[in-house]
């Protein structure tokens, strides 16, 4: 991450531009072709964002669906309407996923709602154009690649911190850049957000990507908004970003297997979790 931040600082470019240039070189394609692929991904994300809050969604198992639409239709008591709606959108995309709808894994299917909901909020609030969002998706992707190479983006390997945690870090970095933050601030946003997500376990009830996965997309989105706001205020992570990513790896390795997507521990192993598994088997 440090290299990426330095490179962006030195070339006076944003991280998204650097990631796009590296990807084009690596894949031996033109930047416009690569950008075109990302436009397609964003279109799929937008459709899922819309479906999640407008359609009556039910998963195959019946364990999830309907919460996003409900949340979107109500006035929140404590959150601002904007933030509450963004959370509803994150839940909605995750519900679309659980109901066998089309989504973009970001970085995984289980954590697919966080980045799209964050970017749509930024687009509306900061009145950005589509090109800015596409660029921000490359920023997010760059953060995800660094996490994958130095830790993990798989719940089976690193717990939920590696899926929803990394998605939150990706979103926080992208939001920070969209709001005009420097590459260094992007690094702090990633570090602060990931720090707040460390240790989160992967404990899906009945082995399904529904409980608690759908709601964790909402929680992770809130952490991303907080991380971005903290970094934009100038608050710094006392632990450098690459060391935080290293800590995530260490914590993931230390997690017992029962808390890494096996559904043998955590919420999956509560009396109700076990009962639901038996009922659905």
């Amino acid at each position: 991450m440090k290299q990426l931040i330095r490179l962006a600082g030195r070339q006076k470019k944003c991280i998204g531009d650097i990631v796009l240039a590296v990807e084009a070189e690596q894949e031996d394609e033109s930047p416009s072709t690569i950008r075109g692929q990302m436009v397609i991904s964003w279109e799929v994300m937008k459709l899922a964002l819309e479906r999640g809050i407008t359609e009556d969604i039910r998963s195959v198992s019946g364990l999830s669906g309907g919460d996003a639409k409900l949340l979107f239709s109500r006035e929140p008591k404590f959150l601002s309407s904007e933030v509450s709606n963004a959370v509803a959108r994150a839940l909605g995309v995750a519900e679309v996923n659980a109901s066998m709808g089309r989504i973009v894994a970001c970085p995984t299917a289980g954590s697919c709602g966080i980045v799209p909901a964050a970017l749509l909020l930024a687009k509306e609030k900061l009145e950005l154009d589509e090109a800015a969002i596409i660029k921000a998706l490359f920023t997010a992707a760059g953060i995800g690649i660094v996490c994958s190479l130095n830790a993990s983006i798989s719940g089976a390997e690193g717990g939920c911190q590696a899926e929803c945690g990394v998605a939150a870090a990706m979103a926080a970095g992208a939001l920070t850049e969209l709001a005009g933050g420097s590459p260094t601030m992007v690094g702090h946003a990633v570090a602060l957000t990931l720090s707040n997500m460390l240790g989160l376990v992967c404990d899906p009830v009945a082995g399904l990507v529904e409980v608690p996965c759908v709601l964790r997309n909402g929680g992770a989105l809130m952490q991303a908004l907080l991380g971005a706001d903290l970094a934009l205020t100038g608050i710094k992570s006392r632990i450098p970003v690459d060391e935080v990513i290293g800590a995530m790896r260490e914590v993931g390795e230390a997690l017992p297997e029962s808390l890494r997507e096996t559904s043998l521990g955590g919420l999956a192993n509560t009396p109700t979790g076990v009962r639901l598994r038996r009922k659905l088997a």
Partner: protein
Amino acid sequence: MGKADSVFEVIGPIMIGPSSSHTAAAVRIGQISLAVMGEPVVEAIIQLHGSYALTGKGHGTDKAIIAGLLGYDAADERIKKSLAIAKEQGMKVKFQNVDLGEDYHPNTLRLLIAGTSGTHFEITAVSVGGGNISIIEINGLPIYLSGEYHTLITIHNDRPGIVAKASSLIAQSKVNISTMHVSRQRRGGLAAMAVEMDQPLPPSVISELEDQAQIVRIIPPIY
């Protein structure tokens, strides 16, 4: 899961949910099996092992695998309705929970499929995470292919010459080999070869190899 080092491995694939390993991977296993079959599938017995047997239904693994056998990709909205579509098209489908033993990965599927001409295949595949898969057996012969490359597959009698001939045809086509896997039942028995390549092979290679092998297939990358 392998390390994601490219943008679209982190933001992607575009897929039908809910699970990259149980849904998207199962579609790909179906697509590759269809490509190995080389003709429409009319009958399929799907054996689910380990985690697939436990949580396959909730993840739509059943619908996903049949969608793949119908030729749909992992982003196709018809996946949700694939069982009904298969029924309409007259494809006979059966699912069985099986225990293949501890030697097999928890996410293993075995497909027993028959094509329109009566050809049968038994294909065993593993979902290794993040939507990535490996085909590990074809008709009981150990093999390895990921579906991410252009792949040449042969099933042939074990005798000298075919591996050399395939290699030289590939070299003549100026195609670079990425991985190569050869195995056999016993000396002189049935053998299988899978060659993953960076570029496509000309279809003429099929006819050049056909007199030496029972089955020759060239499969494009399937994402």
